[in-house]
């Protein structure tokens, strides 16, 4: 069974993960980042370059915005969708629900620590000065090309 599966993986050009995409029109990441209040709780589809993928479990990926140096994070339930590390540098269309994340200072410290460990770097708690609010997409389905 395993040997049979290998060629199937190799020839897959387009990787479909999670639920099938239902929206035909992509919303610009910059539009969501600039007007998050218009999108909270809504289902949107974004398209962009995958610039980072969770190295431990494949449970999130960062999609570059259409505006330089900006991005949006797509988070999925662990195990429900697993983003492959090979997705980095590829284009993805992702559908999900826009979420407002409000973290207390303690939660923000934990998250920054977690991210630093994933990146293999060191972490200075002093870099987190207070509560953090940010936007992310709860990923439901994705197509990686």
């Amino acid at each position, binding site marked *: 069974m395993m040997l049979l*599966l290998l060629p199937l993986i190799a020839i897959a050009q387009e990787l479909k993960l999670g639920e099938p995409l239902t929206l035909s029109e992509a919303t610009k990441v910059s539009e969501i980042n600039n007007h998050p209040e218009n999108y909270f709780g809504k289902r949107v589809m974004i398209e962009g370059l995958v*610039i980072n993928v969770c190295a431990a479990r494949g449970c999130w990926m960062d999609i*570059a915005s259409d505006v330089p140096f900006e991005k949006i994070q797509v988070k999925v339930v662990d*195990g429900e969708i*697993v983003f492959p590390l090979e997705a980095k540098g590829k284009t993805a269309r992702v559908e999900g629900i826009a979420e407002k994340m409000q973290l207390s200072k303690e939660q923000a410290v934990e998250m920054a620590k977690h991210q630093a*460990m994933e990146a293999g770097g060191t972490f200075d708690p002093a870099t987190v000065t207070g509560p953090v609010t940010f936007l992310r997409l709860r990923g439901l389905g994705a197509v990686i090309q």
Partner: protein
Amino acid sequence: MGWRRLNHLLHRDIGYLCIGLTIIYAVSGLVVNHTSHGFNPSYTIEKTIAEVTPPEKGSQPDVAYVARVLSELGETAPLKNAAMLAPGVLRIFVEGNTLDVTLNTGQVSLEKVKRRPFLYEMNLLHLNKAKGLWTWLADIYAVALFLLALTGMLMIRGKSKWRGVILTGIGIVGPILYLML
């Protein structure tokens, strides 16, 4: 054929059918149990630092500069993409490697990612990353394991009856005790 004989045959044949997947699930289970920030069970991730010639002052990195970086590092894998990650940081994606170039110093952080042979495929099956048809096959395997346990319990009899009862009891009580502690 008596029911005991039928039970024995079922236990034996289901057991044979389960050998392959049990080995896959056991090996994958061991490595997946130890997933951490420092250990990815499906990939090896190697991080290194290198240096390249920075672009000339005032010039923006372009396709030619990306090619020069890859050439200086001897990186021959196919180029996937390149993007400015932050002002002064160029990220280059090639197959199996991500390079972050700090443009004013020429320092490069490389992250080489490689699938772990066999473990990648075993984890793909065990964690049901493939979904679809594999979900059904994995469900059949789960039912087969249940039948294996059931037919196994029905085999407890004769001289070794108490040994069977005690060992089965340990297997059932172990996880319950852990949850209660």
